[in-house]
């Protein structure tokens, strides 16, 4: 009787769908990147009926391997989020040839069971830069000054963040070649007070829009915007809900969506393992979001329209967005 019970259980599982593990380099609760990946998993749980576990590494490199192996032992599909896994994933994937790895935010080519999804942050932040450049000189928006000066607060001075920065600057210059773009790296993804100070320093210089790419440190940027009555742009997820009065838009990375789509393809057996997907504007992988319907827009209709035009141009290849070196 006992074994019979187990059998039915296994069957049920099969019916429920594939087993997935989400392995993230940091921790959940960042309200952006990792949370967004988890949303994809949640969506897949709901719509595809997958079974999923989340394994956090809490930015501890000594756990990357452990958690990845743990995940490989328990699931068929392992979604790995974080450029940091570059080495370990190659090592582990070799040992589990019949498992599927979906690797987010980095590029590995030529490994049959690793499928990469890489985002062209620079394209998304190009839009953010363009929007900020348009808004900063528009005095009809409350609190804007005439000066063409915008800012960005980065978490750490690392390649991914610099890629955001490159697109942001290019976007701004595209609108106004004379514009000044100031960047401050807080040096930490977990220090909102430092984020606030950095943003305040920017506002004090005459910047009126700050793009935050700084994880929890970015929470402080939003506070600075609120306190000084100026503006911020969110990142990774649509963060306008945090403070619709001061966060004018968010550059979103469609991490959740792309994870969901990949899982869907696996369910439908349309998945091409081993390939590299670049998610740019064209693939709806990155975008600029303006919050939900009920929120009052800070930027004008014209600006949104212009952003959409730029989007089209990028899609058609009329604009090429530079990458960070």
């Amino acid at each position, binding site marked *: 009787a006992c074994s019979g019970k187990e059998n039915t259980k296994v069957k049920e599982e099969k019916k429920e769908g594939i087993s997935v593990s989400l392995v993230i380099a940091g921790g959940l609760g960042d309200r952006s990147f990792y949370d967004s990946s988890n949303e994809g998993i949640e969506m897949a749980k709901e719509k595809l009926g997958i079974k999923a576990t989340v*394994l*956090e590494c809490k930015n501890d*490199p000594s756990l990357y391997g*452990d958690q990845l192996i743990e995940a490989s032992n*328990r699931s068929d599909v392992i979604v790995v989020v974080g*450029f940091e896994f570059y080495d370990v994933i190659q090592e582990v994937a070799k040992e589990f040839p019949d498992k599927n790895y979906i690797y987010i935010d980095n590029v590995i080519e030529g490994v049959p069971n690793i499928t990469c999804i890489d985002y062209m942050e620079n394209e998304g932040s190009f839009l953010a830069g363009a929007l900020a450049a348009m808004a900063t000189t528009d005095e009809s928006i409350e609190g804007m000054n005439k000066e063409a000066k915008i800012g960005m607060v980065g978490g750490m001075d690392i390649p991914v963040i610099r890629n955001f920065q490159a697109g942001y600057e290019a976007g701004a210059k595209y609108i106004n070649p004379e514009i000044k773009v100031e960047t401050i790296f807080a040096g930490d993804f977990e220090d909102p007070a430092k984020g606030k100070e950095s943003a305040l320093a920017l506002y004090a210089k005459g910047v009126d829009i700050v793009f935050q790419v700084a994880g929890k440190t970015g929470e402080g940027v939003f506070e600075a915007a609120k306190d000084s009555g100026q503006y911020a742009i969110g990142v990774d997820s649509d963060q306008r809900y945090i403070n619709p009065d001061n966060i004018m838009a968010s550059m979103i990375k469609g991490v959740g969506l792309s994870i969901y789509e990949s899982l869907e393809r696996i369910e439908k057996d349309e998945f091409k393992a081993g390939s590299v997907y670049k998610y740019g504007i064209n693939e709806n992988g990155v975008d600029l979001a303006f919050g939900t319907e009920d929120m009052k827009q800070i930027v004008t209709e014209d600006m949104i329209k212009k952003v959409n035009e730029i989007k089209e141009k990028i899609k058609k290849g009329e604009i090429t967005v530079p990458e960070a070196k």
Partner: protein
Amino acid sequence: MFKKAKDNVEYLISLFLSIFAALLIGALIMLLNGQNPIVGYKALVLGAFGSKYKIATTFAKTVPLILTGLATAISFMSGIFNIGGEGQLYLGAFAAAYIGFTFTNLPVFIAIILAIIASALIGGLYAYFPAVLRVKYEIDEVITTIMLNSVAILFTNYLVNYPFQAAQGKMGGTDMIAEAFKFPKLVKLSKLNTSIFYTAIIAIIIYYLIKKTPFGYNFRIVGENGVFAKYAGINTKRYMILAMVISGALCGIAGAFEVYGVHYRFLQNISKGYAFDGMLVALIVKNNPVGIILMSIFFAMLKTGSNSMEVATGIPSELILVIQSIIILFIAGENGFKKLFKEYRLKRGKLVK
């Protein structure tokens, strides 16, 4: 130096009692949180020792703990407090990585020796400065080493993001060291590698230094009463600097082992507080080298085990941190509990000569 066996046994007993009491409190917390503590602890132990791979993983984690623990021991026992192990580890790791990805054509043996020497030198040098500031200018080394940690981490961060950025894969790290230099793995997939043997050798050397040589004796007396040591003719300043440099070198080597045995390149966040964990380990066992090894295994077990415990039982890892901190508190309180108990017994007991 000449501790009696009876004292050691007594210490072990009260240590186990303390850990046991802490585990009981942990069980209570789990119960309150709606989890079954037996399941939880079983997962913890199995997670750390349940398979060959798990055992290997646990032991792999002891390497940096033992090295930074020994580093703490030698500095603290000499009365100079090296809190800068983290920075020394980062610089040592980078130096070792640099050799590994630059001089790729060197014979393996030479390259590894060179890497270890380089990491020890740079770690030692980075400890030398605060030591000199302390000894010559009376600048508190606790502040300077805390500050220098941040400086080293920022500096290596700069190095891997600008001049030595990895060619591929936006790693936040340097390039890989040459394939041949990587320390061989002892158990498939796990991080356990030959650095554990080197660590054992280093531990034996340090043990010998501390326990068996006149230099170890001098280090200790300098720490216990510097005025006395000076009066008796010991060059206390030199011993303090030396202790700090050895301590820094050990931390540097810990960094080298992380590179050559675990990550095969320098990563910008290569250590998440190993030096602090090592400090904790050393303090708990009162700078005893053998104790450091055992306590490192215990801490490594907690780390690997708690990871599995979270996955297996759904007990959130934060709660495991809370339980861990209670275990630490109780171990630290061991001596106090014992004293209270003895005083209590003394009050009721008979008088003895």
